[in-house]
């Protein structure tokens, strides 16, 4: 009987410690969450605020998100002005022990505007285009930053997080060979996209985005801009229009009808489409969809 009681006491003491030891991570996007899950494995509990199908520029500040952040040890921000809403969620969470990791640290940002930036240019990000995770090279920088944050927060598990980082890097390299093969099939492919989401992807995989459905970032399509795009597509023989899952198909389909182009759903985030279940498969889905669209 004494043994049973002693065992129960040990379990009661041990169980909560085990639970507490698990790092709780909240991220602004599913992409950062996916990388964090790969690195942290079973030692971390990761939640994303924005869903893969949601526009990461515009997330409503909900008290339930504050509750998630209140329980967290680490918050992963996208940065570069994409998730400005995160500040208010973090403030509302009242969590003073929260470590905030800006995952854009060390990223060579593209499309950094020069000169005066104002709202006449649309929703321009003064620090550069914030969709940097769409280049696997930047995935490496993100992963290193996340692993360093995990180690700082939980030094006892440094070995596990280093292993996790190594697992991520190895896996990325093995996927990269396949991505390069797929990218070769679409090299030089011209298409238009709804929003300026793809400059990093464009650089990495050699596609060419010639215009945007939005006349300026964050501004809804206008009839005159749509007419201009139709003219452009006809003159350049561009046959693919990429649309992120959170934008309306209305204007892209109008353009497609007038030009014979194909509208393709291009998820920029993990969870944004079937099959895009983690950071690696996201690139597979994107490359496959573009390849398929090119073949049509």
């Amino acid at each position, binding site marked *: 009987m004494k043994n049973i009681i002693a065992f129960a006491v040990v379990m009661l003491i041990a169980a909560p410690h085990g639970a507490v030891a698990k790092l709780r991570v909240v991220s602004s996007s599913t992409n950062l969450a996916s990388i964090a899950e790969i690195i942290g494995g079973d030692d971390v509990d990761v939640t994303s605020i924005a869903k893969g199908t949601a526009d990461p520029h515009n997330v409503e500040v909900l*008290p*339930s998100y*504050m509750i998630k952040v209140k329980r967290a040890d680490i918050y992963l921000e996208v940065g570069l002005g994409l998730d400005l809403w995160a*500040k208010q969620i973090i*403030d509302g969470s009242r969590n003073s022990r929260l470590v905030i990791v800006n995952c854009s640290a060390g990223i060579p940002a593209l499309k950094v505007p020069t000169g005066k930036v104002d709202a006449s240019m649309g929703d321009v990000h003064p620090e550069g285009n914030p969709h940097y995770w769409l280049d696997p090279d930047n995935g490496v920088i993100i992963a290193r930053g996340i692993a360093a944050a995990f180690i700082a927060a939980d030094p006892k598990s440094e070995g596990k997080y280093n292993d996790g980082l190594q697992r991520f890097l190895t896996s990325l390299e093995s996927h990269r060979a396949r991505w390069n093969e797929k990218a070769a099939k679409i090299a030089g492919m011209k298409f238009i996209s709804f929003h300026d989401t793809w400059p990093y992807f464009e650089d990495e995989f050699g596609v060419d985005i010639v215009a945007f459905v939005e006349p300026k970032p964050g501004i*809804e399509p206008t009839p005159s801009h749509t007419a201009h795009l139709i003219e452009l597509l006809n003159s350049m023989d561009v046959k693919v229009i990429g649309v992120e899952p*959170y934008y309306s198909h209305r204007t892209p389909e109008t353009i497609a009808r007038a030009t014979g182009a194909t509208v393709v759903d291009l998820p920029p985030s993990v969870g944004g489409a079937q099959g895009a279940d983690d950071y690696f498969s996201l690139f597979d889905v994107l490359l496959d969809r573009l390849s398929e669209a090119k073949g049509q």
Partner: protein
Amino acid sequence: MDIRIRFITMAIVLATSVSAFAQTMSNPDISVIADTRAVYRTDETAKGLGVRSTRFEFAESELNIGAYLNPYMRADVAFGLHGVEGPFEIEEASVKILRGLPFSLQIEAGQYFLDFGRINQQHSHQWAWIERPLMHRTMLGEEGLRTLGANLSTLQAIGDNALTISVNAFNGDAFAAHDHDHSEETQTEDVTNEIAGAPIMYAGSISLFREMSDATNMDIGGSWIAGEYDAVENLNLLMGTANVKVKWRPDKYRAVDWVIETAFSDRDVVLEPEDSTGSETIDKVQATGVFSALQVRFRRLWDVGGFVDYTQDASIDGMETSAFGFFAGFMPAEETARISIVVRRETSDLVDFDDTSATIQFLWALGPHRPHQF
């Protein structure tokens, strides 16, 4: 009044200036929100002496300045200019301890919109229906209830739901402080109240937020205020409110937003003598009110909706005012500009007065105004 000015001055210094105590690394966020209107009114009266008018109005402009003071605190100041010539006033000036306190507490101190109900906490530019609900005007004041006081709140989880509980202590003279009546008589009353010692009143609120699905959220809340609001006449009041907000937002292009708020008031009021030989008496006046609005957003930039509004007067027994209306709005780009039209019909026993108005509102915002919380 001196105390308030001193406090507000201190808050501004904390929020905006190069601190007397240390160097600052960056400027605070500064934003301006302006509300310009073209209004057509019938101003009908029961005697048929209606005066129709059309005019442009500069309803309000708001200057917001806010910044973190350190990793634990931020300060925000909102200046309001009513009309072109004023009055110019400090709507809010408060410092908030965001984190570092036990039990997930936050403390806000200064002048702020009291969390009595859902709508009183919001600035008027957030409302598609434009006008402050009638029950707030009669129970809380024409500009809502801004208080000089302190708020202590906590956020707790009940499963995945968010429970927010708060208590406030504030100067009871807040009920008379924002009516833009700067007559000698009112000022004398204010001074007298201060000499008598502004009574401290207490308020509390509780709200439960629940994500019902990926697209649907609901928030249920209740709040109360109790205490002496006039130290000179020893007048007391008790008020309560219940509110529900439901939002369905399946994607960034569509949303349905429904809010309902009801309030009751039970307050002492001074009744003037019926003739010169009589004396003032104190009576209790009970009032209830309800406001509800439904807003439907479509194609991201457009919205339509309607509202109903009813209240009994909080100071005069048996008097009622009601209104209803419709609105439609267009936002060329989110959070920066909105053009809307609001048609409103208001009927009141109070002044034997019916009014139908049509308002075209131009609302615009400059600067990094923070997103509005659910």
